[in-house]
């Protein structure tokens, strides 16, 4: 009896005690449950749609949309297809996201640095800004910028005017639009040459520094090249640029570039809100660089500007970039709140009007979610690549 039990211990465990077999079993069961649940959902949906006579498939994308959209970056009118409304919505989403990312980064870095300022007043104002803005829901801020601020702006005929070229009223902000004439190609060409020259300059100064240790004011010279070369070309070509000034025509201003209030409100709200988070990220990133690094760089005799550029910022960026990316992702996702104030983004145009006119909720929602998923995966991918590039190389 006793002997037997010792035998069974030394032998292989019973199959149901073998961790590998248990793991396999467990995974197969889980996979089965997930597939079963997915199948039930799909089956339910299909049978529900069939029994309720809802049309399915993606054929609707080629049908005529028949409604207008106030702002479109790709050509659009009511005779175009529902598929085209998707592109209009997508480009508008990308536009406001890009504008938001740029503005939020600039404001966020400024506020983050201000937060660490030796000036007490500036530091406290930055603190108040951060604590107020990030503790108030974004949707509320969008409403505030849209409904409360818009209502206090004048009507088109009483616009706020600056020099006959800039107009602000409750229909938006109107700026002069540049119209390029013949010969402007020369300016573009000059710009290309300037960019090439800057790259050449950089590699030359690096080589020179390695050989002789002498520093060269690369940044200042680069900026000078980038500005001056196209400017010279511009005057040589006989100033081939005219300005299309906005003017009051009928109901409203026409001509020039216009920024509609929906876009402006969404942009301001998204930028200010995200900036309050970025500021904190920047602050902690700078604080994460130990003081010894600054002291070491001073001891090496590096000037202040170079210490910042070569020692502090690269190290701080390593801490800043990952949370910064997730803030950018949040900004892109939050841009979908556009639907609350009628900015024609993807959710508002495609998941709103198009879905309603066609009634094909499943297809439209699937496409919309797919878009956000793709954007998110792309940004994560870029971030991982960047992380790999900047991570500490341990040799």
């Amino acid at each position, binding site marked *: 009896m006793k002997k037997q039990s010792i035998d069974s211990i030394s032998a292989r465990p019973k199959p149901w005690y073998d961790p590998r077999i248990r793991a396999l079993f467990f*995974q197969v069961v889980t996979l089965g449950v997930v597939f079963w649940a997915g199948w039930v*959902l799909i089956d339910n949906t299909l049978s529900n749609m069939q029994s309720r006579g809802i049309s399915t498939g993606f054929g609707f994308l080629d049908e005529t949309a028949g409604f207008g959209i106030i702002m479109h970056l790709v050509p659009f009118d009511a005779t175009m297809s529902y598929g085209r409304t998707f592109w209009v919505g997508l480009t508008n989403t990308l536009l406001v996201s890009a504008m938001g990312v740029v503005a939020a980064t600039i404001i966020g870095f400024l506020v983050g640095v201000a937060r660490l300022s030796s000036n007490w007043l500036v530091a406290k104002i930055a603190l108040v800004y951060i604590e107020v803005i990030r503790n*108030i829901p974004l949707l*509320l801020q969008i409403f*505030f910028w849209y409904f*409360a601020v818009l209502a206090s702006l004048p009507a088109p005929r009483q616009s706020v005017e600056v020099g006959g070229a800039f107009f602000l009223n409750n229909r938006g902000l109107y700026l002069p639009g540049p119209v390029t004439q013949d010969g402007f190609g020369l300016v573009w060409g000059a710009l290309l040459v300037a960019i090439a020259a800057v790259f050449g300059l950089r590699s030359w100064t690096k080589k020179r520094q390695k050989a002789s240790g002498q520093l060269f004011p690369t940044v200042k010279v680069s900026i000078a090249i980038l500005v001056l070369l196209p400017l010279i070309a511009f005057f040589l070509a006989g100033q081939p640029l005219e300005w299309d000034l906005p003017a009051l025509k009928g109901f409203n201003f026409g001509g020039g570039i216009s920024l509609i209030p929906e876009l402006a409100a969404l942009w301001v709200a998204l930028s200010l809100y995200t900036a309050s988070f970025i500021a904190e990220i920047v602050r902690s990133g700078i604080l994460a660089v130990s003081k010894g690094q600054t002291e070491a760089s001073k001891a090496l005799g590096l000037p202040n500007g170079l210490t910042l550029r070569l020692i502090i910022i690269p190290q701080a960026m390593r801490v800043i970039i990952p949370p910064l990316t997730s803030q950018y992702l949040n900004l892109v996702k939050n841009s*979908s709140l556009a639907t609350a104030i009628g900015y024609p983004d993807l959710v508002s145009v495609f998941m709103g009007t198009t879905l309603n006119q066609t009634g094909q909720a*499943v297809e439209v929602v699937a496409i919309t979610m797919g878009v*956000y998923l793709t954007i998110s995966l792309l940004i994560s991918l870029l971030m991982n690549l960047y992380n790999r590039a900047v991570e500490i190389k341990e040799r």
Partner: protein
Amino acid sequence: MTESTIKPPKKNLGPVKWMRTHLFSSWYNSLLTLVVGYLLLTSVGPLVSWVFLDATFEGSGPGDCLGEGACWLFVSQRLNFFIYGFYPDELQWRVDIMFGLLALAFVPQFIEGFPARKWLGIFGMSGLPIIGYVLIPGGILGLEEVESSKWGGLMLTLILAYIGILASLPIGILLAIGRRSDMPIIRGLCVVFIEVWRAVPLITVLFMASVMLPLFLPEGVSFEKLVRALIGITLWQSAYMAEVIRGGLQAIPRGQYEAANALGLGYWRKMGLVILPQALKLVIPGIVNTFISLFKDTTLVLIIGLFDILGAVQSTIADPAWQNVAIEGYVFVAFCFWVFCFGISRYSQNLERKLDTGHKT
């Protein structure tokens, strides 16, 4: 005696010294201080008089708001709607009890050394939801039923955030454990679930929950709109919760796992008795932070037609009886959210400092 306590020169002492170092340390700092100070003074004055001095606080109706300042009368007259929505007046005591219990369970968490603090917290996570489930909708124990379509205002906001966080916690824990599992299929499924939910905006999730969820269910089975919104919020939130908890799991040293294995604990015992208690304690600040963002995000339900506090205010602003009260309404909502979120975030920061055992690498 007097000679030995000679004070330093006046310019190195007191407010003068403070101002010299903090406001006027260099020429550009002085300039900055002056410019910013001027802007601050010119904007604070009108703001204070708008909010307090010129504002109307009392009166009987829209006609009393004549002053230049804010019309807080609008807020006080509609306060009942902003807090309870359409909840019947005579039954609002039930909501009040819940507000009270909620405060009883969670406010002590902010106070160091409050008696039975831990038990109150546990009650808030376990007993309270059950009481709320009986009390708010009614329909049992002789309580009159109040349909969820009549819930609204601050009460609805709190319900959404509270249930959202409570329900997403266990799902988040399971997902986090799954993501750190050795089994490739389990891990893969959890990764896909988490990443998909985190990638899509809440508004699309809410919209899907509100109009598409019924299509997924078998014929005849249906949920109320509020429940559907809650399902959407919970699934979405649990993905974020999982990532927070995963952070805690990763912070637990390998030795703890190995020690638990050496003791012969099975997987679930190892997790439940050794790893999770430590990991969860570590991530309390993170959970509190996700709660804050969820609390702010609940405002999105107004887009699918639920009257949360912002929805309630937004719909009253359109009332022609009151004119130009949009800013007052928004400021009121902003203030409510700010008090909650700022208070809670302070709490989580304190906790973070306290939990910081100095072992961070």
